[in-house]
């Protein structure tokens, strides 16, 4: 298992071709396929599900379930009254930027533990400032706050946060085996304080980031001190994202009471609670409007900027903004398309297909590297050396990227067949075009603008775009790109899945996130919009790998992802 950093368009193209040959030129299961990836015709063998071992496994298990419970379960022959999937060849998918080849079914989030963990790790996380609480302790209660007291508090908190009692006698507690993914670390821009804290609790910005990024992030954080809190996966799965800050605040309050020897009911506790629940709290996602009926830390409120900062690829691949954008693309597409739109909003299972096209077979990769190289070569730009955006640059890059992407599909019929829906193709091309424009200009809104031009050109060239929603969103989008009137436009990083007219369309939200990534990586910055979020996730103890996102998805698909949390195996009968 390996992952690659393509570095150049030529390398990306090579891996795109390899992926296409793996998919269409080699037998997978018993699909008897060995096609020329540039031929416009093929022989459709109509082998059905029998050609694919995973499908056969599913059929076998479905039959067993039917027998065991006496009620119909999965049976592929129920598809189209006896015509099962697989009238075309059932082909595998190469995870972008890796050599991992998997079945499509294993990239559905239900079948992929790593994908689930990505969302678990975001939903169960919040950041809480310590400074207000320390002021309360010092000024109101006259307590002394020292590095030693902070260390002791963090010891207590890491005992309590998973659900342990701290000042109550005879309190029921969560079993550590059920909540071993829960912990709290601390980070600060104050080097003097950091040096006196117990390293086990510290996210050391200097160690986790390159020097220039570290300096930038520390300047953003200032002398403030923040806790990075990850409550147990099993808790946020059982409740919802809103539980994260509630759970955290309760345990933070108790830990302050215990470690600073406070009265459990004194009025100052309310100040600490208010700080933890509101004044000092940074959630990953904003609460949605009431009509969406979702609390905070649910994916619909996760801004594109925060999503950019959650992904950590920029810590290790600063010199390859395309790599950073592609890993972010994978993380965001999976979350926004499969889980948010596919799960929370629609309920459809087909959303997987939209997402999958954005992180498999190196197609976005080829487009993005090509578009970025065009921008850099044409405008003499590079990382941290961007060209101020203008209509002329956006028109040029938007057109170049759109035509490149369209012709890739025209030249590689297998790629066209892989991305069999226009929505997939539209997203792939616009994502790459927009992100490359953002990389070249260092401006995410310029990238968005190129996105919309790409959509227009795509629709005209092929006489089709996506499904109905693309007509709405992608035809009217150009007018809100540079509008800063509050109900019409916004900085791209501050937009999110519930932004007006972004709310209903698969394939877009992850793409917009990728464009935002292009903005900050093009500038060579260490974070997109929030240094607290970027630092909070700069932590190798996190279960999901936010650096090599697509490789992690691949491990999940291969059933080799071994950092799952929230499992119930400890408290249920062994199978």
């Amino acid at each position, binding site marked *: 298992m390996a992952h690659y950093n393509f570095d150049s368009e030529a390398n990306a193209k090579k891996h795109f071709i390899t992926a296409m040959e793996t998919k269409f030129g080699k037998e997978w299961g018993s699909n008897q396929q060995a096609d020329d990836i540039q031929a416009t015709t093929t022989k459709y063998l109509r082998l059905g599900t029998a050609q694919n071992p995973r499908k056969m496994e599913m059929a076998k298990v479905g039959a067993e379930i039917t027998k065991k419970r006496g009620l119909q379960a999965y049976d592929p022959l129920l598809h189209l009254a006896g015509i099962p999937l697989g009238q075309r060849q059932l082909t595998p998918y190469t995870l972008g930027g890796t050599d991992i080849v998997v079945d499509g079914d294993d990239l559905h989030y239900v079948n992929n533990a790593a994908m689930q963990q990505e969302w678990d790790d975001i939903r169960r996380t919040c950041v809480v400032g310590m400074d207000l609480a320390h002021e309360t302790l010092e000024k109101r209660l006259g307590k002394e706050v020292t590095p030693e007291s902070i260390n002791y508090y963090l010891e207590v908190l890491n005992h309590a946060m998973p659900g342990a009692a701290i000042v109550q006698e005879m309190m029921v507690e969560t079993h550590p085996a059920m909540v071993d993914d829960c912990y709290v670390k601390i980070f600060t821009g104050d080097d003097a304080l950091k040096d006196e804290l117990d390293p086990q609790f510290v996210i050391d910005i200097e160690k986790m980031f390159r020097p220039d990024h570290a300096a930038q992030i520390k300047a953003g954080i200032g002398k403030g001190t923040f806790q990075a809190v990850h409550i147990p996966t099993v808790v946020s799965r059982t409740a919802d994202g809103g539980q994260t800050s509630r759970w955290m605040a309760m345990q933070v309050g108790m830990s302050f009471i215990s470690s600073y020897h406070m009265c459990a009911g004194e009025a100052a506790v309310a100040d600490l609670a208010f700080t933890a629940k509101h004044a000092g709290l940074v959630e990953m996602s904003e609460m949605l409007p009431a009509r969406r009926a979702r609390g905070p830390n649910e994916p619909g409120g996760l801004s594109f900027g925060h999503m950019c900062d959650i992904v950590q690829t920029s810590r290790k691949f600063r010199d390859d903004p395309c790599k950073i954008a592609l890993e972010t693309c994978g993380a965001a597409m999976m979350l926004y398309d499969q889980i948010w739109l596919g799960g929370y909003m629609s309920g459809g299972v087909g959303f997987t297909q939209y997402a999958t096209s954005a992180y498999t077979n190196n197609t976005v990769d080829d487009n993005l590297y090509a578009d970025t190289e065009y921008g850099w070569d044409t405008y003499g730009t590079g990382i941290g050396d961007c060209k101020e955006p203008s209509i002329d640059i956006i028109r040029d890059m938007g057109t170049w990227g759109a035509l490149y992407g369209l012709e890739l599909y025209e030249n590689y019929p297998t790629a066209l067949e892989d991305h069999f829906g226009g929505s997939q193709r539209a997203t792939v091309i616009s994502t790459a075009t927009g992100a490359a424009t953002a990389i070249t200009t260092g401006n995410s809104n310029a990238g968005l603008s190129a996105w919309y031009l790409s959509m227009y050109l795509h629709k005209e060239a092929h006489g089709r775009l996506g499904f109905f929603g693309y*007509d709405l969103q992608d035809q009217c989008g150009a007018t809100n790109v540079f509008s800063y009137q509050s109900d019409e436009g916004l900085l791209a990083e501050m937009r999110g899945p519930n932004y007006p007219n972004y709310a209903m369309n698969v394939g877009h939200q992850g793409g917009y996130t990728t464009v935002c990534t292009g903005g900050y990586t093009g500038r060579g910055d260490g974070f997109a919009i929030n240094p607290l979020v970027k630092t909070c996730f700069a932590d190798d103890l996190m279960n999901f790998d936010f650096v090599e996102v697509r490789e992690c998805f691949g491990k999940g698909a291969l059933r080799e992802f071994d950092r799952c949390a929230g499992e119930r195996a400890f408290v249920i009968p062994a199978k």
Partner: protein
Amino acid sequence: MAYKPQYYPGNTIIAENRRNHMSNNVQKVREISDEDLTACLGHRAPGSDYPSTHPPLAEMGEPDCPVRQMVTPTPGTAAGDRIRYVQWADSMYNAPAVPYWRSYHAAINYRGVDPGTLSGRQVVEARERDMEAIAKEQMETDMTCPGLAGIRGATVHGHSCRLQEDGVMFDMIDRRRLEGDVIIQDKDQVGVPLDRKVNLGKPMTPEEAAKKTTFYRVGNVAYRDDPEAIEWCQKVWELRTIYGYQPK
């Protein structure tokens, strides 16, 4: 009400074909009987009456209304027909029609239509007999090649798939196929078997299709080879973008 032909930019055969579709300047090239048409659509038994959702308008005692006086009902509306659909999948390998131009064709040239445009399919919903008139024109004219397009109510994928070895667009449920030198259809739009084989006519040769298509592609007429079409598109984008930027 008469519509003037609509125009589209571009100096290539693709642009010309697009203008032809918009202006309904299409040529009848085959004959499909009413019974065969009805069978393929699958909404009612061939020869049966049109089911209705309301009595004929003339019998409904409609209120006195200036809009009703101005707008003459379509035949299907006047009769109270159900609203039914015809939905097409057109191959990206030079099928004569593309989804947007099917929609433009319907919206510009017919009344009482509700075209829906997607990437792999294009649907027109209308009162049943009105829809049948459109479907008949679509099937009988050179805006359709029976080998590169087909009516599909469900399981529509095929538009982006490689062609079969015989040059016919892939259809998972095999509603139609090449037999001899013609395409026959023996299942309706949603794949229910028919009691007949409907002859849809000869498929276009690749050379014919390349001349008739409204699809830009490398190997035929690439989009980049029609700069006027691109510049027009860029202009629309630029005007919309600038309009949205009003820092007042």
